[in-house]
């Protein structure tokens, strides 16, 4: 062999489109958005769906009803700060909250793998009962299916929820205006790193507990405060970065975030540093962003801080006139960079 005496650029054949669904299609990033757009939205298209919100708002005999559903496939079933049951209740309650809706009722569907211990199932259900009680919403209907051993991962839970919209605001990405303040309800990255630590058996000095919690109370207070809420979005898979990208895309506006203003707990930062993850992309289960006019920002932050779940709410950025769909972050050193949507899953780096 010899050294190349000239450059020989080379490259593999392009992977145009995946013929199979990959795990990354469920990761909350761009692949998932492509799949939803290509397979689901194109098939089901209608005005309520097209708003692209966490919960659809539909008219039902004069009442405005928020309606949403979500499925939960988390492994392990129990983790510091919660369980698949608390996730299933709070996730759906929070999706309703993102429409500014008061939750009225939930459904619960269970797909159970043959062989699951009844004691485990009872613990899951008890955690759902407690979470529903805390969120102030009854579980009024349900469904149970059992699949062959090996065809499930213990138990999968689906919840759907309906809520009542009692305000006249149009809470949606399209309502976001240049100059709006971006308010984050608390520190980011805890849920994702809590799951990661348990799943991968990573031992940190103290257990990172999930932030899983209902955010209905601070959101309803925010709406009642008279602040002109333009958009709300809970930060789940894909983290803060993906949520901001979704809204920037829907609003056809640009968003600028100050990196130093985004709260990340020390232990979460440390875990992310070790694994080469960016906390901006890590999942949360009790965090949201609110877009309000600059003039209402101080009042909004003040209202949110009265609730324990959003006690460290703060303004992290602004909406700019352009370029549309782009989220920029000002780094700690003062330079600007793009904060892109998560592409596929975050994969731990080699070194």
């Amino acid at each position: 062999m010899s050294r190349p005496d000239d450059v020989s650029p080379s490259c593999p054949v392009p992977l145009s489109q995946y013929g199979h669904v990959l795990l990354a299609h469920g990761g909350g990033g761009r692949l998932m958005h492509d799949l939803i757009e290509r397979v689901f939205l194109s098939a089901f298209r209608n005005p309520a769906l097209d708003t692209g919100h966490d919960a659809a708002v539909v008219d039902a005999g004069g009442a405005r009803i928020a309606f949403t559903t979500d499925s939960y496939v988390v492994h392990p079933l129990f983790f510091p700060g919660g369980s698949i049951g608390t996730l299933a209740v709070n996730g759906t309650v929070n999706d309703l909250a993102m429409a500014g809706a008061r939750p009225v009722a939930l459904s619960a569907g269970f797909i159970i793998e043959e062989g699951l211990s009844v004691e485990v199932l009872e613990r899951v259900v008890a955690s759902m009962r407690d979470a529903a009680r805390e969120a102030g919403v009854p579980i009024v209907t349900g469904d149970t299916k059992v699949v062959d051993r090996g065809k499930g991962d213990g138990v999968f839970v689906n919840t759907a929820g309906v809520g009542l919209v009692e305000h006249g605001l149009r809470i949606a990405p399209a309502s976001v205006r240049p100059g709006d303040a971006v308010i984050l309800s608390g520190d980011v990255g805890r849920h994702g790193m809590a799951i990661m630590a348990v799943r991968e058996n990573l031992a940190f000095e103290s257990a990172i507990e999930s932030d899983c919690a209902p955010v209905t109370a601070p959101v309803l207070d925010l709406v009642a405060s008279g602040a002109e809420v333009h958009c709300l979005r809970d930060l789940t898979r894909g983290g803060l970065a993906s949520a901001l990208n979704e809204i920037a895309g829907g609003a056809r506006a640009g968003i600028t975030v100050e990196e130093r203003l985004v709260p990340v707990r020390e232990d979460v930062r440390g875990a992310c540093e070790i694994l080469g993850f960016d906390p901006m992309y890590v999942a949360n289960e009790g965090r949201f962003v609110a877009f309000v006019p600059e003039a209402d920002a101080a009042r909004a932050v003040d209202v949110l801080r009265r609730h324990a779940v959003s006690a460290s709410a703060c303004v992290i950025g602004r909406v700019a006139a352009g370029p549309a769909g782009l989220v920029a972050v000002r780094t700690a050193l003062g330079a600007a960079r793009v904060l892109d949507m998560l592409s596929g899953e975050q994969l731990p780096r080699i070194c």
Partner: protein
Amino acid sequence: MKYVDEYRDPAAAERLLVAIRGLVTRPWTLMEVCGGQTHAILKYGIDELLPAGVTLLHGPGCPVCVTPLEKIDRAIALASRPDVIFCSFGDMLRVPGTDCDLLSVKASGGDVRIVYSPLDALRIATENPGKQVVFFAVGFETTAPGNAMAVYQARRAGVGNFSVLVSHVLVPPALEAVLDSPHCRVQGFLAAGHVCAVMGYAEYAPIAARYRVPIVVTGFEPLDILQGVYLCLKQLEEGRAEVENQYSRVVSEHGNRPAQALVSEVFRVVDRAWRGIGDIARSGLGLTEAFAQFDAERRFDLSQVGPRPEPAECIAGLVLQGVKKPPECEAFAGRCTPEHPLGATMVSPEGACAAYYRHRRLTARQGKTS
């Protein structure tokens, strides 16, 4: 956070930038060798803060990017076998092979697992005696000791169902390949700190002397990189070409000797093909005869997976050698994205194209990248 915030302090960064601006009298072109440094430079926007005449080129130090197509294809062939559990570091899973990537193999039913340490793969082997467990041993000198340890322990414990698919590469021969290219624009190097933590930096002195090029062993935090740039530019302005160690809190001249001893017991230096660059003599590591029984390429018949021609769809080779920057590619951010990479440099966060795509797409489109 302790040991992190100190190295990201904006005030200290500004002091270094002032010093750099006061130092520079003419344009200079430096290359950071390691993909981890490239990632940090773009994440923190360090290149944008440097004086206009100072250009940072991104080097070949991304293991995901330089692992040859043939090895990826062999990994895919192994991972597709029903009797194999294939273990890999996470970011190798999305690297495109000729027909697909390891994630697609997993989606089609292959048992592909992400591990954080090669010792995890060894544990999986002992827990699954009925399966063959293959670990994808890639990387530079940084990952070589861990991978060597896994093979060493496998032999000591007699784990017969464990093997490694080896595609290790070495930094110094790659630097010489870059310097030997007639297109070379590099005037100084920021050497990869973690590679030197293992190997030390004594082997860089002959390169600095022969090619009259300063080499500064540099860390990965923003202040490390700024200080490395400062030291490298100072040498250039003063007409020196020496090896300096910016990363002295981690790196010593002779490196980690027990780790080196283990690496040279398990591995030997071999010729290696680099994806996008080509064959480089004595630029890789392969298993020694004493450990050959753990070589997946000997254990399994992979003769049907030979070298494949790589169509010249993208300019990854030019990017890896610092001849071009990612936005200069026609396909960048259009036909080539992290979801649908044309080349490996668009895959890992350490790959230059992926780093530009994630952090610099806006200015890249406006043509203001250099």
